[in-house]
């Protein structure tokens, strides 16, 4: 930053408290031709912060592949839209609510869910599924129990009440999140392709309508407190934590969907972060028009709210719409029926400015383009660090007599144990279309009234990303791809939530750049574009960044629900086969971290050609009805994956494969692998299909009994394994 001789009336400290750099302030003055007043400063601060402007990330996000045959709407709207045939589309997005959830886990997580639901139903879709991606600190960190139970009950509290099933997610524990947990929420909705709603305002003179809850002093930018204007009775004016009201959201959802059946809405935008500010500016900017808003018309919950507060309040469960004036009364009746606020607060103008009035006084007048197009954009310096070196492990370093004990210890660990304690607190069946419940690879939700379904999964391995951001970025994408394939679906597109530390540090920016590059390569190769996403930077405590965490949410389509696969073993006598080669890559594996308490050895690499071949083979084999059950091999390696199949199906297995490096074979985290249960009748056909496609396919055992028996090593009862599996996460809640 240049060294200024501060020549402005506005206090320098006030500008800083609004998170604006001094040269950014200069840019504002230049654009306006004068200094901004406090309300305007607040508006710029909100629009130009990282969250709204993507100023550090935009340049790199543009590199992601975002188009494809099925993409109806890529990034840039409230949510992405993909074509799922027959005139139907799936609408989805993932979003972070990290900081609020750390401050108040229940409300933070709940309002996170509420926010992402609105993003999806704003587009005209009925939400049909919620997922989440959660990261907490170490299991025994003093805060973890409180945060875990608060976040889980907050997610459930909101989703259960509004009646959208929470069907999946992921959760990890790692010390890098001790002071900065991650709560990423994803919603998937379904709409008709010809009934999608967008945010661009249009029609000069058309009414701008506010609907939903009243506005209070919820979550107003911390800067309010600091600004001189609020010195007297400042106690009263303290910004407050947002509290979620899922009941009102349910009413808002039904009212909006009811109104959307009529030809009344010209544009619609939910009020999310930076509330009325970002929603009104977004509408105006997309539509290339101006808006004039009378703030005294905004329904208020608290007394004496200033223009500044009204514009920056983050009260939940609110929407802004531009209506066809001839439908205004009809719309009002619908909202009245649902007991919701409905207020015309302004109109569309041709000034291309945002003009705010309050009690006939002009409170702000800003050209829209300087807020949006002229927003700062940075190409921050970055350093790409050398990935951690790959370590070769040798059989001599391991005692094969401990192998089954090690397995037991691993599946008891909160990172690998059953997540049942979590998903049993979520209503994962409301709407009665959940075909595959949590606990398998991807969840499957039927498209209501049809025989097709959507498969969905969220994934990321931050440890992989930390030690090799490029491979880690690839991995996060590919892991959802595999999960979706293993459930019997065709993967179609992803959403992402990029959680990183401070981008002003070159090493962190380097992680971001490399993760994006990895994601982009995987998406391009797999024809699996990014249609929406969210960036959360500055996740740091005491100067320490979190591990790079590009959480990915993938969605796939199953044309015929009879092809759905789960990971439960189905039948005695079937063969268990592995797809993909195992090369004893133990680096950064769960084995090394849980059993040896080390984090070393290098991230496994993914060959995207092999990945594509193996995935296509599994899809073909499922579509040809050759497969009884399927599971991808993920963290923990083959033996953990086999255990999951056994425990879920309550069936044992005899593993016949012989290896001179059992720990390597059974716990390695080599990529691009799946386990398939195949009946003896279909085995030859599978083998042939694999050969024709140059895919490594190998029988490793026979299903049956109530134990996992490994030749030359020993036995483990499934019921004992299950007891260990179910303690992991539950234990934290009992700490």
């Amino acid at each position: 930053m240049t060294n200024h001789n501060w020549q402005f009336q506005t206090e320098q400290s006030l500008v800083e408290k609004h998170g604006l750099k001094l040269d950014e302030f200069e840019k504002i003055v230049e654009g306006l031709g004068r200094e901004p007043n406090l309300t305007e400063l607040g508006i710029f601060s909100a629009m130009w912060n990282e969250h709204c402007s993507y100023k550090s990330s935009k340049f790199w996000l543009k590199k992601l592949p975002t188009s494809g045959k099925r993409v109806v709407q890529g990034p840039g709207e409230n949510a992405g839209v993909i074509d799922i045939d027959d005139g139907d589309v799936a609408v989805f997005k993932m979003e972070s609510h990290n900081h609020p959830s750390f401050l108040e886990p229940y409300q933070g997580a709940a309002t996170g869910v509420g926010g992402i639901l609105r993003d999806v139903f704003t587009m005209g879709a009925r939400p049909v599924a919620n997922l989440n991606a959660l990261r907490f600190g170490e299991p025994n960190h003093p805060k973890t129990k409180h945060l875990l139970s608060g976040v889980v009950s907050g997610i459930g509290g909101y989703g259960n009440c509004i009646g959208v099933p929470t069907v999946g997610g992921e959760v990890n524990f790692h010390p890098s999140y001790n002071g900065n947990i991650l709560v990423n929420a994803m919603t998937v909705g379904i709409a008709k392709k010809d009934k999608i709603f967008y945010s661009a305002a249009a029609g000069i003179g058309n009414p701008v309508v506010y609907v939903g809850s009243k506005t209070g002093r919820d979550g107003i930018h911390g800067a309010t407190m600091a600004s001189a204007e609020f010195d007297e009775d400042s106690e009263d004016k303290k910004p407050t934590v947002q509290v979620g009201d899922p009941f009102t959201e349910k009413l808002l959802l039904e009212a909006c969907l009811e109104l959307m059946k009529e030809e009344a809405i010209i544009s619609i935008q939910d009020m999310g972060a930076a509330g009325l500010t970002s929603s009104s500016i977004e509408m105006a900017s997309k539509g290339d028009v101006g808006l004039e808003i009378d703030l005294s018309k905004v329904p208020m919950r608290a007394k004496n709210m200033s223009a500044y507060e009204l514009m920056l309040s983050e009260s939940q469960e609110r929407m802004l719409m531009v209506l066809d004036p001839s439908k205004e009364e009809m719309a009002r009746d619908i909202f009245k029926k649902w007991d919701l606020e409905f207020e015309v607060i302004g109109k569309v103008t041709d000034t291309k400015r945002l003009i705010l009035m309050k009690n006939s006084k002009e409170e702000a007048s800003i050209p829209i383009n300087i807020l949006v197009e002229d927003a700062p954009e940075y190409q921050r310096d970055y350093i790409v660090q050398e990935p951690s070196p790959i370590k070769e492990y040798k059989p001599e370093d391991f005692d094969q007599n401990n192998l089954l004990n090690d397995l037991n210890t691993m599946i008891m660990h909160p990172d690998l144990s059953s997540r049942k304690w979590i998903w049993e607190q979520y209503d994962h069946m409301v709407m009665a279309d959940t075909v595959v419940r949590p606990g398998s690879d991807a969840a499957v939700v039927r498209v209501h009234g049809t025989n097709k379904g959507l498969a969905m999964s969220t994934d990321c391995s931050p440890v992989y990303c930390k030690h090799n951001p490029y491979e880690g970025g690839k991995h996060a994408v590919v892991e959802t791809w595999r999960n979706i394939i293993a459930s019997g679906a065709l993967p179609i597109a992803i959403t992402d939530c990029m959680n990183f530390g401070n981008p002003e540090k070159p090493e962190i920016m380097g992680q971001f750049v490399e993760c994006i590059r990895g994601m982009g390569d995987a998406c391009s190769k797999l024809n699996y574009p990014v249609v929406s996403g969210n960036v959360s930077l500055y996740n740091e405590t005491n100067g320490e960044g979190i591990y790079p965490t590009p959480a990915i949410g993938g969605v796939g389509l199953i044309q015929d629900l009879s092809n759905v696969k789960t990971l439960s073993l189905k039948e005695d006598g079937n063969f268990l086969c592995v797809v993909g080669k195992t090369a004893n890559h133990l680096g950064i594996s769960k084995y090394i971290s849980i059993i040896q308490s080390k984090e070393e050895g290098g991230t496994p690499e993914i060959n995207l050609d092999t990945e594509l071949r193996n995935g296509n083979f599994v899809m073909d084999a499922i579509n040809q009805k050759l497969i009884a059950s399927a599971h991808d091999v993920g963290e923990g390696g083959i033996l953990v994956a086999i255990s999951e199949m056994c425990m879920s199906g309550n069936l044992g297995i005899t593993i016949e494969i012989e290896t001179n490096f059992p720990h390597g074979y059974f716990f390695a985290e080599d990529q691009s692998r799946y386990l398939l249960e195949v009946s003896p009748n279909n085995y030859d056909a599978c083998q042939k299909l694999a050969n024709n496609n140059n895919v490594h396919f190998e029988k490793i055992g026979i299903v049956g009994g109530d134990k996992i028996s490994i030749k030359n090593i020993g036995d483990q009862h499934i019921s004992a394994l299950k007891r260990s599996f179910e303690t992991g996460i539950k234990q934290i809640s009992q700490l």
Partner: protein
Amino acid sequence: MKSHVIVFPGSNCDRDVAVAIKNISGHQPQMVWHKETSIDQSDLIVVPGGFSYGDYLRCGAMASTSPIMHDVVKKAKEGVPVLGICNGFQILIESGLLDGALMRNSSLSFICRDILIKPKNQSSVFTKNAQVAKMPIAHNEGNFFVTSQQLKKIQDNDQIAFQYCDENGNVNEHTNPNGSLENIAGILNEKKNVLGMMPHPERAAELAHGCEDGKNIFESILN
């Protein structure tokens, strides 16, 4: 065959139960908004699950004061079969059609999973063909409570419809998901034409749900 499903603000299993009834009986039930004051002639009134009024204050309390509930109570007293599921059960209790109270689960957390129930009463229109059945529960307040005198009364009068059990029909504390007195999962009124139950039969009503045990209850009323 005419059936009605009451819709309150915050109901969220109204569509699910309507779909189940349509699939099983072939007839589309009529949805009745809570602000209406009367229901046409009906062979079955369903008070569905969900979070009427957000479950704020007490589950079912505010819905039980809705305008439509006068007529539901009246029809119930005239003998029309009334089925309350989950939040519907809570509403029927709050409206005085059924005895007892539904308190917070003893685990203090929401529980969504499959459970097994077995019929205790086997003579009502709802339970006459019932057997041990698997279906999901999904609730925060399903912990059934009555005073000891009331318990004796509902026992003597054969009003206990379902109890939580295991595969073999054993009823004990290990098969009790929420702390309910006597493992009670559902109860009937004195005349046995009103049933309230916490489990969701409409979520176990077709192959895609992975289990069809819930159909039995609808079939025995509808066919």
